[in-house]
């Protein structure tokens, strides 16, 4: 594998059980490498875009906006303004003479046309370069139109996705605390860092409903501007995928005294632990909540575990590689694979921090390779060498796996099947099973000649 690692990237790898943990990360991608990473703007877009009743206007050239049009499956139960792609399409003239006028006109036009509850204006590389005073334009539009118009400083070149997350959090903080919190129940939380992909947040909200916990704001899946404004009324912030919204949680603790806990809704242990942690937080307020939670978890596990056992028959001993956007997701996935009897041979992310990777190394089996910001060549070399059975990643990784006859599970923002919660765990197992046991692989050149029986699940008619 070393031949595939550019020398300058050597220290963005680590093998569990090898030398002492020493890994560089969160650095800029290397010129000429084909990074799977995106830009600051992408990070901001990811976090804010599911706010479904806001206008999301990209101040920049056409491409930046076109590539991000409706690319993620963040579902809304109501308005769907977020699924539109708006931009100022900066052209040569604007680059020379500035884009402020065009931005003002675009805001005017679009706010009148769509009557959004707020507008987010994203700065791109070009907007940043030509030095438009976006704050001034936004302030003017805000006073004219009577809705919050917020500039998001997300110039692509100012770092990677993480900086984008933080710009998004600062933008949301402009809304938090501006709404009326009367009527917010005492046992209520905000759900941070979930984007309601394939309706996942609805699964989680249902759990909380059964526990007796209200939800004030979804941040940001199925999100609404009004909810964000009164989010400070919630007693607790439950933060998933801490990379993207942790900063908002911290800002809210600072400004409004809202405490937060970390959560993950992926896999069994993390899902259950997250519910118990919330129950624990409210147990003085509502003494029966712990029992209700235990009852819920028991019911779900009783349904789930026999199903998992079935899938496990066929999956025991198989190998997985994980390459996802955030390191937190990787933690949960490593644990989820254990329930399927599978070993994780590679765990990596685009944007993990040093601490993330240290934690990841601690839960992975010896021999597992930890990688930051991998490129297609490294991934393919790894898939070939380790002979893994499935790669978990995003759409950009999919063809690499399939080309080589390796199974694949889409675990990025584009997924169309809910993978969170106990129901999601079953979906996950089914997905992994479907891809790992496919007969197609036996015909692939790389695996030709290998035999295997019919999967037990198939024989059992499942």
């Amino acid at each position, binding site marked *: 594998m070393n031949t595939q690692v550019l020398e300058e990237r050597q220290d963005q790898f680590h093998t569990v059980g090898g030398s002492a943990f020493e890994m560089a990360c969160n650095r*800029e*991608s290397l*010129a*000429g*490498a*084909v*990074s*799977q*990473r*995106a*830009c*600051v703007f*992408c990070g901001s877009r990811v976090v804010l875009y599911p706010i479904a009743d806001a206008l999301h*206007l990209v101040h*920049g*050239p*056409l*491409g*930046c*906006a*076109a*590539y*991000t*049009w*409706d690319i993620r499956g963040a579902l809304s139960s109501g308005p769907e303004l977020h699924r539109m*792609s*708006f*931009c*100022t*399409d*900066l052209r*040569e003239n604007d*680059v020379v003479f500035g884009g402020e006028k*065009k931005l003002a*006109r*675009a805001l*005017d*036009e*679009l706010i009148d046309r769509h009557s959004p509850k707020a507008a987010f204006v994203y700065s791109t*590389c*070009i907007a940043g*370069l030509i030095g438009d005073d976006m704050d001034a334009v936004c302030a003017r539009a805000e006073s004219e139109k009577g809705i919050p118009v917020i500039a998001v400083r997300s110039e*692509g*070149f*100012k*770092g*990677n996705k993480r900086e984008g997350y933080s710009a998004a959090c600062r933008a949301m903080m402009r809304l938090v605390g501006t709404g009326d919190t009367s009527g917010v129940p005492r046992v209520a939380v905000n759900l941070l860092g979930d984007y309601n992909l394939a309706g996942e947040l609805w699964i989680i909200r249902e759990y909380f409903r059964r526990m007796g916990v209200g939800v004030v704001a979804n941040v940001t899946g199925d999100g609404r501007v009004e909810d964000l404004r009164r989010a400070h009324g919630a007693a607790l912030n439950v933060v998933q995928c801490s990379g993207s919204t942790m900063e908002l949680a911290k800002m809210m603790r600072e400004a409004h005294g809202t405490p937060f806990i970390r959560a993950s809704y992926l896999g069994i242990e993390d899902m259950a632990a997250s519910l118990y942690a919330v129950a624990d937080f409210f147990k003085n307020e509502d003494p029966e909540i712990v029992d209700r939670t235990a009852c819920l978890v028991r019911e779900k596990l009783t349904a789930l575990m026999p199903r998992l056992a079935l899938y496990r028959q066929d999956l025991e001993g198989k190998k997985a590689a994980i390459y996802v956007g955030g390191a937190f997701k990787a933690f949960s996935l490593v644990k989820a694979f254990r329930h399927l009897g599978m070993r994780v041979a590679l765990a990596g992310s685009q944007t993990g921090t040093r601490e993330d990777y240290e934690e990841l190394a601690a839960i992975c089996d010896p021999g597992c390779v930890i990688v930051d910001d991998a490129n297609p*060549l490294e991934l*393919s*070399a790894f898939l070939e060498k380790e002979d893994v059975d499935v790669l978990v990643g995003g*759409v*950009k990784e999919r*063809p*690499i796996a*399939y*080309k*080589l*006859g390796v199974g694949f599970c889409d675990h990025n923002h584009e997924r169309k099947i809910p993978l969170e919660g106990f129901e999601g765990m079953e979906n996950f197992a089914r997905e992994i099973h479907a891809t790992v046991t496919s007969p197609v692989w036996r015909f*692939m*050149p790389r695996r030709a000649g290998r035999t295997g029986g019919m999967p037990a699940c198939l024989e059992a008619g499942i």
Partner: protein
Amino acid sequence: MKTGAVRVRPEPENVKHGAASLSAYASTTNACAVCAPLGASLAFRGIEGAVPYIHGSQGCATYMRRYIISHYREPMDIASSSLGEKQAVFGGGPNLKKGILNVMRKYAPSLVGVATTCLTETIGDDVPGILLEFKREFGDLGLPEIVAVSTPSYSGTHSDGWHAAVAATVETLSKASSPGSGNGVNIFPGMVSCADMEHIKDIVQDFGLAPTLLPDISETLDGPALAEYRPVPPGGTPLSSIRAMPKNLASIELGRTLSDRKTGAAVLEKRFGVERTGLGLPIGLRETDALMEALSRISGRPVPRRHLLERGRLLDAMADGHKYLAGKRVAVYGEEDLTIGLVAFLAETGAKPVLAATGGRSAGFAQAAADVCEGLAPVPEIIRGADFHEIADKAKDLSPEILIGHGKGQRTAREWGIPLVRAGFPIHDRFGAQRLSHTGYKGALQLYDRIVNALLKKTQESCSIGYGYL
């Protein structure tokens, strides 16, 4: 057969029904096209051993890769200069050089295709200058060919980027002294599917000619399963063939809006005197007839029986299906030349193209639409620089019954409750986009089947009887 060669004409002041409007809005909503470096990267992918390289910040390249991968379902590596804030201030030269060196080490490319972005154009990086320096500094390393093309998004759409990359490649590589094969023909197919490229090559070969298709993505973006991963996919136009283009018998360039532009064929004509034949994208009878006629003339051979037979089948199908399509109001959108080709074909079928929209801004678009409709159908409404808001705006009064274009019109079709027949790029919501055929008699026939079936499906689904024969 009637020739469909493109005539260069100034843009009409006021084509009947079809004043060529550019956007009246300051904002763009749901763009119909994407930016130029994407098209350049696609074109570079169609050159043997080439690695596309985006000189800009990381996000652009990653977005484009994702966009391309979702259409072709193939690996698509695009290297990037990964410019950060510092480089945005002090210039991206050092990163560009370092980036190319890294690509050389990892991919051992025969060619690196460098496309610039809005960022590097705006900060004013002198890419040709930087590359000269690079060659001076590292000339001892056995460098790959390096082709550079300027592609900020304000220079045009993805299809403009494609043509610019092709022209730049020809300009950089073609040498008069290279030997030619005697029966070689240069074909510039434009942004068509992998299946189309394969078919166009077959057609040319059937005339006993040796096509040099530039670019040729038929294998690089529709490759087989692999035993071993190949960093650069096999296939693509060989460099030696590109170098030999000046010695070929003629150049055929497909696309009616290209005639007044600096294209690969234009470069070959101007520099080496290679005859340039500009034709429409061969979709339907007349446009394909024109291609056959040109090939027949160049080769001195009659149209092979196989293609006469295919023509006959197409015509037969058009008779069988003419009533399904008669008078059907069709809105067509997408890349300029493809849109024109589709309109040309529709006009022949008896359908009524009511709207021809493109995200591009080619001046000749409206005239081309008028030309291909002449004598057969009224000229459709035209939108250049279109987005889906304007398409919807215009289409309100036109009440189209079917949409034909890339996958991004899906939401519009859904809103209107009419079928969408997918054609061109991108198609992210269906399977097998790289294998869709549009060109040649055979491709048009497949397209015809798709169109008629989409209408039949609609009829069947919206009728309570559920006819078993339609």
